[in-house]
């Protein structure tokens, strides 16, 4: 069957070409990320070796032990802020995500179900805030937080993050609730449920995907946020991981491998979360990006 072989042969090159392109895209997407990890388990002198080894000859987690304060090293008090900042990041991110799911879902539901001029105006106002660059608000927010006594506090950061993430959550969940037929609540109301009960007991239990999308999106945004934390919580011990890790760069006596470990540590929770909730993240991204 020479013709079949010839045809297969003709098709081989496009397929090989395709896989070549796929490999190129994969290298571009995660090669650098893997390199950060490789740097973080290397020793600084192996990084400096020429020619550069593609895999560290002495891989170890000693850089992580250093930033966690498990072993003593010459720059240990520059990296001593990592653990408290990690704690602050976890607390702030989890509280903001929880508040987004509770308060954001309520507001998203109200916007999905109630038509009233006031609702329309406030929804436009919320959408308008998404066009505003956060950075332009920072000087005024700095002064307001100072007057409120919320500067350098986690509550202040929670408050600020909520206001920047609510618009996304409300928008994502409003679109989600609009896909749920009204008849579901209507029959619950006929059965004697109150409005709130119908929402909590009937609508929320079937809104898992929307809630996960909004929650995962909020988590990633807050976990990675740098500017607000840098400006509002500049005092040591009150800030989150990104400003702390960024601050290590300015220090001359910290090895890059230690900074790489801090950077990898600060990146990994959001990356894992995004990969686990991949499908929901993509939904959230596409819904969250479509401006009013």
């Amino acid at each position, binding site marked *: 069957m020479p013709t079949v072989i010839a045809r297969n042969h003709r098709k081989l090159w496009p397929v090989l070409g395709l896989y070549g392109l796929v490999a190129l895209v994969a290298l571009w997407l995660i090669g650098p990320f893997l390199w*950060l990890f490789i740097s973080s388990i290397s020793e600084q002198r192996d990084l400096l070796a020429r020619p550069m080894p593609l895999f560290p000859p002495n891989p170890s987690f000693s850089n992580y032990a250093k930033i966690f304060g498990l072993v003593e090293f010459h720059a240990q008090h520059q990296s001593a802020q990592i653990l408290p900042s990690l704690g602050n990041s976890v607390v702030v991110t989890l509280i903001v995500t929880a508040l987004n799911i509770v*308060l954001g879902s309520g507001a998203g539901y109200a916007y999905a179900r109630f038509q009233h001029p006031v609702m329309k105006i406030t929804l436009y106002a919320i959408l308008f805030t998404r066009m*505003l660059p956060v950075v332009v608000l*920072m000087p005024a927010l700095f002064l307001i937080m100072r007057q409120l006594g919320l500067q350098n506090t986690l509550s202040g950061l929670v408050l600020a993050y909520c206001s920047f993430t609510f618009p996304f959550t409300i928008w994502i969940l409003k679109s989600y609730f609009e896909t749920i037929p009204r008849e579901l609540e*209507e029959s619950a109301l006929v059965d004697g449920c109150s*409005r709130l009960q119908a929402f909590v007991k009937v609508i929320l239990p079937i809104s898992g995907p929307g809630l996960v999308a909004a929650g995962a999106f909020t988590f990633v945004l807050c976990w990675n946020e740098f*500017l607000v934390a840098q400006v509002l919580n500049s005092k040591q011990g009150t800030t989150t991981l*990104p400003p702390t890790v960024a601050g290590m760069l300015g220090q001359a006596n910290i090895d890059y491998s230690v900074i790489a470990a801090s950077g990898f540590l600060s990146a990994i929770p959001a990356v894992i*979360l995004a990969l686990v909730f991949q499908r929901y993240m993509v939904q959230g991204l596409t819904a969250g990006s479509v401006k009013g």
Partner: protein
Amino acid sequence: MTALDPGRPGLVLQPQASAAGPARRRWFARKQRVAVQSEGRFAAALVSPALLVILLIVFLPLVYSVWLSFAEVDLLRPGGTAITIFGVRLPLYRFNGLANYSKVMSDPLYWQALLRTVYFVALFVIEAVVIGLAMALVLNARFAGRGLMRAMLLVPWSMSRIAVGILWLGMLDADFGAINGILYRLGLIDRYLSFFSDGFTALNVLIVVYVWNQAPFATILFLAGLQSIPQDLYHAASVDGAGFWRKLWHITLPSLRPMMFLVLALATVNGFLMLDLIYVMTSGGPGNDTTTVTWLGYRTAFSFFKFGPGTAILFTLTLICVALTVIYHRLVLSKFQSE
């Protein structure tokens, strides 16, 4: 006669059947009013916490920062007149009209930064669209492991930009960077290159790194768009003998137009606002060679604590961003209404 439909406040106010007597109609009207009121209260209770926070943390700062941009702000002396809004006492400092704006506009540094920002945004948008689209076309093909590859798209995007900056500082380092290491191993260079000592190179490096971080987002949007193109179009084009480029130009790109506008709008605004990468990678240097308008505004406000000129700079930027968003929005709307 079950006009009292609690799920649809819009329907509750429908006029009743004329057969009903006036007493009955009044009864309905009262019942409806109560229902509408409690519905309204329920909706208000649901939205007010979020609205209150947004009012306090977005709208109050917005109004206050408009004021600050017209004021001579002395952070050490918050005395003088102040107003109290929502229990927050806000010092008003001294009104000095357009002085901040005229000071900013007469500073050559501002215009250089603006020109640099325009270059940055233009190149960033082009690269993000081209690379984003190219990746989308590859990932839209059929191959083993496509799901895994699409998951990988989220890696550069979901890293914090601080980590992205640290990562690329390491990749591009003049002493141990992987890029130098690979080029050296391949024999393409005989000594390690420095990517951050020349200002223009540093600016272009920043663009590439930001594209690495942001292009996957464009890819996700393009992939969503590609999936809605009917396959018949491609089959018909193949029958007519069209090749890859013809199909791309005549089928794929026209069908992706809504997504293209969205990607362009988001990339433009994100490009104007990029700040954290500059913070970690170059701090605006060498000299002022990577100082964009955002960085200039941030540094004026928070390194030199000149809040008046700082907010003025940031407001010029905000106006550009809002104007661009509106223009893009108009373009999209008019495009799709005419079709």
